[in-house]
């Protein structure tokens, strides 16, 4: 009987899986005992041969399924798992040596929540546009969620590297089988957040994502189809978050362009599918020629087409969704927090009340609103300072500066609108414009001017 089960759904990735399992077998000394459950879902390669000949010390069990998709594979794994703690790990992630222990320690520190670990791309050379954008997306994602004070939303919940108590997983009903091939983790994350389950990030539970070996331009377009299908299902199941989904722009009564796009996705697929299949090849040619803007446009069209085709499978002819229940009822309790008692007092109030929305004042000055975000966790103390530093900086900075200089808040000549608008803009062009403005606004007396005034 072990405390921890690592569940790995896999599909035709025998070589990668072997590498993953050897990494799990080489966890650091002091790691608590755990078992490995490999769920082989529709494998036609040598996965079963590899597994039967594998020699590792960690107990390993195998389930075989007939190609039902990762959501059902994870559910099946959780049913037969021995451990009280379930760790879900994708088969294209290489875990670090502290992976299992980090999940375990985080659950000991804060019981009752869901723990996610990072899996940034394994450092690899990325030359073409698709590889660069995939690497950039994943790198940026984990930089964002690992930031202190990040407010987790359902789109941050990824089952590639996630752990939770088995009892909680079953109480939640596991992953929804409707979302068999895409977005099953977002949907699960949404249910977790609605239920109030805390989501935590464990930086040490590190894996490296081998996305450069498992994703392709063609595969991404296939996945867009599945994402369109899942988004449509998600909007039906959770109408309150439909506004956050791309599908929302196409449903209900819409203008001519949207209706045309819907009609194309619903009826003209048999004609357009062969054309869109040529997309990846066209994109490669455009990239080679250096036509970046055209590349991005064609890519967007191809992905958008596949997304709508997937959505059409669910929404059929009428493209109608249940009404959004949050649109009519606009009453959310807004906690009023005043900074004149100090930052610590404000944080304590947020920690105690955990509001969905808060209005932040400093005396009589309105600093900003910690707005209600549908599908995101409630606000808490740890969100407050990062929020002041980024989202609220435009109104909080004058207040903080006035306080620092011992001046009334209304008197703030140090900050021009230009400076406020340039805050947190790291682009090189913004820097060049700003420094040019600095030089021009200094109003330095030039030698020519001096000579003219003297004469």
């Amino acid at each position, binding site marked *: 009987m072990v405390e921890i089960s690592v569940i790995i759904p896999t599909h035709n990735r025998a070589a990668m899986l072997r590498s993953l399992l050897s990494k799990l077998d080489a966890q650091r000394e002091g790691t608590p005992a755990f078992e490995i459950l490999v769920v082989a879902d529709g494998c036609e390669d040598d996965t079963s041969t590899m597994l039967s000949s594998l020699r590792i010390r960690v107990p390993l069990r195998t389930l075989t399924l007939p190609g039902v998709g990762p959501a059902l594979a994870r559910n099946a794994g959780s049913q037969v798992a021995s451990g009280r703690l379930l760790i879900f790990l994708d088969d294209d992630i290489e875990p670090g040596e502290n992976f299992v222990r980090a999940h375990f320690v985080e659950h000991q520190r804060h019981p009752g929540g869901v723990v996610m670990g990072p899996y940034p791309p394994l450092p690899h050379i990325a030359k073409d546009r698709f590889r660069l954008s995939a*690497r950039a997306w994943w790198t940026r994602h984990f930089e964002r969620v690992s930031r202190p004070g990040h407010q987790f939303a359902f789109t941050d919940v990824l089952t590639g590297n996630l752990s939770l108590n088995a009892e909680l997983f079953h109480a939640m009903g596991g992953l929804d089988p409707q979302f068999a091939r895409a977005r099953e983790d977002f949907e699960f994350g949404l249910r977790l957040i609605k239920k109030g389950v805390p989501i935590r990030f464990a930086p040490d539970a590190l894996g490296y994502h081998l996305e450069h070996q498992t994703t392709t331009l063609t595969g991404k377009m296939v996945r867009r189809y599945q994402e369109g299908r899942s988004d449509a299902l998600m909007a039906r199941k959770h109408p309150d978050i439909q506004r956050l989904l791309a599908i929302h722009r196409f449903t209900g009564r819409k203008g001519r362009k949207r209706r045309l796009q819907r009609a194309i996705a619903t009826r003209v697929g048999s004609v357009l599918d062969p054309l869109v299949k040529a997309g990846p090849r066209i994109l490669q040619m455009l990239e080679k020629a250096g036509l970046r803007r055209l590349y991005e446009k064609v890519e967007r069209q191809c992905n958008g087409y596949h997304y709508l085709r997937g959505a059409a499978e669910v929404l059929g002819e009428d493209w109608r969704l249940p009404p959004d229940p949050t649109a009519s009822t606009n009453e959310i309790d807004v906690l009023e927090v005043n900074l004149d008692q100090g930052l610590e007092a404000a944080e304590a109030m947020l920690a105690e009340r955990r509001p969905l929305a808060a209005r932040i004042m400093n005396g009589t000055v309105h600093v900003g609103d910690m707005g209600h975000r549908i599908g995101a966790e409630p606000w808490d103390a740890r969100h407050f300072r990062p929020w002041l530093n980024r989202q609220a900086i435009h109104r909080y900075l004058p207040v903080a500066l006035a306080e620092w200089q011992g001046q009334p808040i209304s008197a703030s000549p140090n900050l021009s609108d230009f400076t406020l608008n340039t805050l947190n803009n790291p682009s090189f062009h913004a820097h060049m414009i700003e*420094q040019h403005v600095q*030089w021009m606004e*200094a109003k330095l007396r030039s030698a020519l001017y001096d000579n003219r005034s003297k004469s």
Partner: protein
Amino acid sequence: MRLAVRDIDILDLPPDFEPTDDYQGALVLIRVAGRPCGQAVIAFDTDGGKMPIKDRILSAASSSVFEAWLRHRLALPDPSPAPSQLPKASVVICTRDRTEDLERCLTGLLAMPDKADILVVDNAPSNEATRDLVGRFDTVRYLREPRPGLDVARNTALRNTEADVVAFIDDDAVPDPLWLRTLLRNFEDPLVLAVTGLTMAAELETDSQIAFQHFGGFCRGFRRQVYDAYNLDPFTGWHAGAGVNMALRRTIVDAVGWFDEALDAGTLSLAGGDTDMFRRVLEAGYRIIYDPEALNWHRHRRSSKELQQQMYGYEVASFAILTKALLFEGNPRAIPRMFRSYSRLLRRLFQARPTHQFSLPYNDALTQVRGAVSGPVRYLRARVRARAGEAGHKRG
């Protein structure tokens, strides 16, 4: 016009600027808790009422100062990388007949708390003055490279060091004490092949120095940036930094090759060796990090003629690199880039010249067009010479 250069911490301001009757104003580097985070350009008022120094600094400060100040005030964790171990490094200064500058550079390097192998590469010297100077510093190595060319010297340095990282600094630059340590902290990611830093003006004593700094100088901003070919077009690799302040992983020669000896100072191409290297790093799928806390100070060219030659050289190099990419790398992306650059330059040529206080005493648009036109031919001739020089070197 003359401007003072000041280095000030916003949390530890002096009572006022030192009395400087001869200066019209100051370029101020602003730190927060010791870390460089922004700049301000300030006029010294000889008439009228005196504003407190804090107000004057804050009124003129760049937005990055306020970001860093607020982060500090809110006690937020520092987003900078903090690796447990720094790679072993060599510092390389490529020099040619500039012993006065070199002495200041070496003195600054030896004042750093970090000890590193320091190598001076004397490039085609006209006398023994540099060797004599280096001989006075016990811990500095001297290497003579008889073939002229800054990139030739850089390649010689890369061949003669065993350190994991090679940090380059110009002979007319002086490092800040934490310069090397700050560069090295960025090499934890194995995809990072180059790290660059912020270079401020060491002095602004002439109109030309001020004009160069007004154009941006070697400053690439005050926010740390991780560049790859996704967020930076390789042909604008100069946005990522400059050769006056850069560190390279020594394995860069295996990943993207040596510096192009047909480029940069000492060749007909006049400049661009560092920009070309950055371009190739990005094209090859690697990363470059710009870390503005890796600070050094550069003495810009003093005279108008030197500045004009520098601008001409930058444009020559820009089109030399495009020519190289097109003809010798078969990169079709160079063509639209070339057309865009030529049309932009021609458009500027026929516009009215700006007449603000930083205007140049010569037609800078014409200077740039001349550079653009001669760039391709200059590169081809430089390439022929580089091959001949290399052959001669092998025979010798």
